[in-house]
């Protein structure tokens, strides 16, 4: 479907635009993919809770015309869990950055996966803490430069998707700001998945990550995304040597496990039966 048919103005709080993101930032591209998914799925705006933490990506919630909640740093999934458990009929979508979701919010990330609670998390991964001035994050590639890694990061990064799969998320996909058609599909399928979905969206931060890592212009960054990725389907036939330095994109996991809200519904029934029996 052509993006032109999407009525973005209906989904945005246009009075709060222009947004605060830097020129060339990938976050707006990813947000539009989310809006297209919402439109295509025909979701009722009143029935969407859009939840974020702190950081550049987290400002996305202010611009969309849903029930929106801008929480504390790292805690979006914890707040969102409360929203979902109290109002299971709401579609809960959480947006988070790499630092927000994987560092300060790492514990909530793995436990939301483990619970397999019916929510969708979109990680805007730009490899850096943008809002605080370009410090290295848990996804910053080893050797990359950041304001707190002036000699290159010495820490190995997390693979967001492998972490999500290992922790129990039932839909896990990775896309890029470069390839929006793919990303649209992943977000849409993530929202449809009756369980916890994680979509890692590679974003670009020309202001900090790019400037410190020889990717000065937005175009340089997008080209890097285009060149570094390999589809998961293709990767199956590649040797470890061929895969070195590559990032796999695609639907990396789609499984089924009991979902928290539905399982808890059976607990409610059992508790009521037990109370009646007394």
């Amino acid at each position, binding site marked *: 479907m052509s993006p032109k048919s999407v009525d973005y103005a209906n989904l945005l709080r246009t009075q709060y635009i222009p947004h605060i993101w830097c020129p060339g930032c990938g976050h707006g591209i990813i947000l539009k993919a989310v809006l297209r998914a919402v439109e295509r799925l025909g979701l009722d705006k009143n029935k969407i809770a859009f939840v974020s933490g702190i950081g550049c990506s987290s400002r996305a919630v202010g611009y969309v015309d849903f029930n929106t909640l801008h929480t504390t740093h790292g805690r979006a999934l914890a707040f969102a*869990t409360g929203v979902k458990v109290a109002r299971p009929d709401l579609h809960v979508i959480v947006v988070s950055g790499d630092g927000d979701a994987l560092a300060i919010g790492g514990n909530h990330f793995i436990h939301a996966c483990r619970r397999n609670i019916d929510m969708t998390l979109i990680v805007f991964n730009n490899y850096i803490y943008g809002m605080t001035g370009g410090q290295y994050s848990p996804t910053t590639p080893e050797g990359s430069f950041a304001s707190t890694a002036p000699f290159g990061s010495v820490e190995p990064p997390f693979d967001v998707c492998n972490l999500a799969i290992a922790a129990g998320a039932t839909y896990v996909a990775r896309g890029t700001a470069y390839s929006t058609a793919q990303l649209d599909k992943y977000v849409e399928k993530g929202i449809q998945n009756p369980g916890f979905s994680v979509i890692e969206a590679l974003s670009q931060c020309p202001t900090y990550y790019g400037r410190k890592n020889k990717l000065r212009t937005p175009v340089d960054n997008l080209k890097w995304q285009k060149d570094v990725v390999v589809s998961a389907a293709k990767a199956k036939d590649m040797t470890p040597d061929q895969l070195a330095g590559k990032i796999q994109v695609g639907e990396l996991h789609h499984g089924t496990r009991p979902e928290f809200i539905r399982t808890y519904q059976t607990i409610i029934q059992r508790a009521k039966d037990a109370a009646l029996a007394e």
Partner: protein
Amino acid sequence: MKIKEVRFVSGNEACAIGAIAAGCTFFGGYPISPSSEIAEFLAELLPANDGRFIQMEDEIAAMGSIIGASLAGAKVMTATSGPGFSLKQENLGFACMAEVPCVIVNVMRGGPSTGAPTSPAQADILQSRWGTHGDHPIIVTCPTTVQEIFLEVIRAFNLAERFRNPVLYLLDEINAHMREKIEIPEASELELIRRPAPPQAENWGFPYRRNAEGVPLMPDFGTGHRCHVTGLDHGETGFPTGNAEIRQALHHALMAKIDKNAASIYKNDLFMVEDAETLIIAFGSTARSARRAVELLRKQGRKVGLFRPITLYPIPEADILKAAEGKRKIVVPEMNLGQYVLEIRRILGHDIPIAQVNRTDGEPITPDQIMAAV
């Protein structure tokens, strides 16, 4: 009052039963002594009463979950103790700023750090008032008997809802674990308050526009309004603002909401205060020791009385001044090294001698200790 049921229960169980009676439909918790029984009872009681219980991955998440659930319309509670209360502070500040009704039970134990997990203390009085960063409004209540734990938790929910503000509910290891008889009133006897509703059924664009009490008319999520909630400084619309005037007005409005309505939040219990020459000011479990001391001293013909604040914050300054008027001596026992006494000294000044009785060895303050100080 029509009584539905008489039971013999612990303070923690009374707290859980009271929460259900208050209309609590969501509890997010994390295990910590000596509060864990509250979570255990609610894990059983909530699903049978159309509520939901979740054990979160940590204390911070527990606090976050109740804020989310409250914004989605539930009456919410969590329970913790000292170390967990420290961890909750940032999100507690969010709840103050975003004006999210919630009840946080703190079954106090000693500290700092792990302290003494299974011994009583009243160590978090000042942390309750000033634990989170920034100036913020807060309500702190502190019951004494098991019956009162049941009744006051209902009041805590009502205050949280009425003012859209966190209410901190302070128990301690003694009254949380001791068992007494409670009388549970018929549901029809209980007045339950729900948060103020927005003035229109949908598309209300001013979630932080205030009613006459200064409380925002916020809609719940999923009710057709699509509001924005943030911990950033914001205006009536709920959206962040850099406007200095709006930001200043917000901070004043947050404080005024509690300060201007304080008279309806105060609650004190006075025992033989009128003719007393010496006044004991005590709260929580320590007030039981103090009351015993008064009983025993009165038998000896000594004129001693007890002022027991049930609402610790906002602090009932005028009531304390009035109770202390004409007294020769004030005695403030508390299971810490002197916290609430700082407020008492501030209020009463230096003209009247104030004696402290403090203990942090994990044992309760005894009536004997208080009698010696009188």
